[in-house]
């Protein structure tokens, strides 16, 4: 049973392969499908081996993938990943 999973924003991916190469348990491969820009985003070929360590997320230069832990019993626990270290309320100011 997998302890983690990944989320991929396929349209951000530029197909560099960093996530595939540096995943410690070789969960990922570049898929044969294309995104709109013609790159091959990653997909999980060994989903059961994913620990949710987020190393793929640390390596992705395009912020296109991240890993998160899943609780075995309740998939609803997934959003915990988004609650992790809270920056300050400074992020409310979203002007560019």
């Amino acid at each position, binding site marked *: 049973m997998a302890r983690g999973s990944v989320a991929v924003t396929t349209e951000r991916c530029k197909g560099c392969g*960093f996530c595939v190469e540096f995943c410690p348990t070789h969960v990922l491969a570049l898929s044969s499908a294309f995104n709109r820009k013609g790159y091959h985003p*990653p*997909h999980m070929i060994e989903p059961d081996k994913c620990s949710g360590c987020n190393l793929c997320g*640390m390596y992705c*230069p395009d912020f296109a993938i*991240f890993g998160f832990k899943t609780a075995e019993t309740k998939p609803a626990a997934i959003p915990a990943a988004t609650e992790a270290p809270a920056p*300050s309320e400074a992020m409310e100011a979203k002007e*560019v």
Partner: protein
Amino acid sequence: MSTLIEPTALTNPVERVLRNDRIPTIWCPGCGIGTTVNSFAYALMASGADLKKTAIVSGIGCSGRVSGYVQLDSFHTTHGRAIPFATGLKLANPELTVVVYSGDGDLTSIGGNHLIHAARRNMDLLVVCVNNMIYAMTGGQAAATTPGAATSTTTPYGSFEPELNIPQLVDAAGACYVARWTAFHVKQLEKSMTEALKKKGFRFIEVLSPCPTLYGRRNGYADGLAQMKEYKELAKVKNGAPTYEVAITTGKPIIVGKFVDRDRPDYLTLMRSQLGAHYHEIAEAGVGCGDDSEGKEGCCSC
């Protein structure tokens, strides 16, 4: 037939400190700059820094684009002048945490003198230098950091100049924190950035980063990943290594680690203690001739 994993309602944790409407970035596929930004984003969150009082300053270059993707008060300044800009920012508003994030060409070539003197003054800045060993944005000309013998658009027969050992330079000039990592060392880099964000004084982190488009392809690397794999293979962690031993030589081990971590009073602390009671008088009155009447430009250097 392969299936793509579609984006879910979850968001990437780093998005909390990024300007998401600016993504995708301008960076090439396999460029390492974005990878260093992940480490920086997690460091910002881990350091507990008040993000309303944290500013990021960049010069010009591919690396100089970082300030525009981070959700802080961001300043994209002129080429080579990120450090003097950041110095002014810090002195005018000492409660800010000021980070300079820029390229090797920007910080050590055109901006080299500013780098030396900010380290000498122990100006309270964190400087992150993305070293892709080339002037990338302008087309891959040789920089002060291009390793001897490497090919670039301006050195088609190889460079005849030995490269600058940046950690040695800033160490000699008096930096109180000096580290080097590569884009492969995401976790160590995050830890180093977190530690450096919390420290006072001039802190310098060099990060080697692949530039497949303008450095890699002229020097035998098929893509960014090939350079990342080489970092993994060649890097030797030597914390505390004397900085005169860490120069980068093509094909030789790349020494990474935290080289310097010392404490000495920073510029503002010395200024305040030496001025004593006069500090507040001067801060209130300002320096210079005091004549700021209209049309009175350039009367002196005030």
